[in-house]
């Protein structure tokens, strides 16, 4: 139970201190530490990352959602293809999905050229891949559950009964 609670809080804000998590959950701080260590040791928690609004930065960041279709044979499974693709650092997310195509791949790079080259030189030539459709991200409104708009602000009165 405490594991679930701690996980929920880390998902809300991975930078909460263990002391604050302990205060919010009524656990001892060392229990929180042990729970987090356990979550990490068992690979439940795979990492912690910042949610970035790239539009707020000067440097361009190019992201693309790529649809991939593949053909399988007796020696090659979805997992085999996925493992191969996932090793590329340009690939930020890779999921097998239901529907019109097989894999949904998120790719990130410094320029359209870089991303395009990656798709055409590294991904498309993979023998099992029969088709790629690349969609460049034009704007992002919400990432990891966080809205990227200007927010609704707090316009409440400082005192109310």
């Amino acid at each position, binding site marked *: 139970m405490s594991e679930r609670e701690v996980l929920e809080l880390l998902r809300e804000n991975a930078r909460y201190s263990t002391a*604050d998590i302990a*205060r919010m959950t009524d656990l001892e701080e060392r229990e929180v530490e042990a729970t987090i260590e356990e979550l990490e040791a068992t690979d439940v928690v795979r990492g912690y990352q910042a949610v970035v609004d790239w539009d707020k930065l000067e440097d361009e960041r190019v992201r693309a959602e790529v649809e991939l279709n593949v053909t399988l044979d007796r020696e090659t499974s979805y997992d085999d293809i996925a493992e191969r693709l996932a090793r590329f650092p340009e690939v930020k997310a890779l999921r097998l999905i239901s529907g019109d195509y097989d894999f949904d791949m998120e790719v990130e790079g410094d320029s359209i050229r870089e991303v395009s080259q990656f798709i055409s030189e590294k991904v498309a030539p993979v023998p099992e891949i029969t088709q790629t459709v690349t969609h460049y991200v034009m704007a992002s409104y919400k990432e990891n559950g966080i809205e990227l708009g200007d927010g609704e602000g707090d316009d*409440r009165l400082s*005192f109310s*009964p």
Partner: protein
Amino acid sequence: MTFELSDRVETVPPSGIRRFFEIAEERDDVISLGVGEPDFATPWAARDAAITSLEQGKTSYTANRGKRELREAIADYVADRFDLGYGADEEIIVTAGASEAVDLAFRAFVDPGDTVAIAQPAYISYEPGVIFAGGDVLPVPTKEEDDFRLTAEALEAAGAADADVLVLCYPNNPTGAIMPAADLEPVAAFAREHDLTVFSDEIYAELTYDGEHTSIATLPGMRERTIVFNGFSKAHAMTGLRLGYALGPADAIGAMNKIHQYTMLSAPTTAQYAALEALESCDDDVREMVAQYDRRRQFVLTRFREIGMDVFEAKGAFYCFPEVPEGFTAEEFAEEVLREQGVAVVPGDVFGEGGAGHLRISYATGLEDLRRALNRIEAFVEEHA
């Protein structure tokens, strides 16, 4: 010319928190723990339903008692959540906030000379409401050693046996106290024995963090003498939409509707569409907000104990009620911590008897602000201890 004010208006003193507004205005870095409303926006599905209703031109009056569909949804909701059985036709009235419902009840059931006992500390509007209706207020103080729960002894001691109406608000604003069934029983017995009408303001019912909320109206012999108030402001974060309701026996709700139809006509139509959607599809949003409040509650209680301020285990609403350290009145502490540290809190005296020496701390504020505010209070206490 000068207006000659009615005695009723003159009798009511000005609001005790007014001057704190002015002090708060002087600083631009104030973190407020003085807010009695959620920091969340209304769940999007409810806002979306309100927008759609506007787009469709649903902007006329509704039935006096509120849209039938909404009353049916309220009947299902209170039956499901609180075991309260009320018919949509005659036993429910939808109002402009629970505040209107409370006012209607005072006006419908209090005659000049009638005595209204109010369990205090309590939400600040009951007392003026009684006075505007021409009644007399009888404060019934609750005590910290009872976890600010109302007891039959306190009622007896205050002389509530001779009162006509008893007003309860649990989960309580400002203390965060709750009244579990076992504590309500003797209060209900007192009300039956002395033939008191009970007004039970249960606006914070969903925000109960220990067990389930029990309504006094579900106890034996209480339904026929109780009016229950609830609404969408707190649990559904809809304060500005102004939507509440009252539940009671048909003749009582009929009497309240008589006033409502001439003074309000009907509760805001747009808000009724939002409320209907809130009941139909926003349970998860409510659960998530309640989970957030509960974490903040534990955070704040723990921090006050770390700071060395006594605080009882508040288990409801979004308030806790710590004691001010020795050497301060609540008023002094609230004023100085606002001036020196820019933290806004409300002195407990504002909420009537039993509130002296305490502060109302609202944790309807994001964790980051709570953390900073509590650090500032800690610095203040260290400096002045």
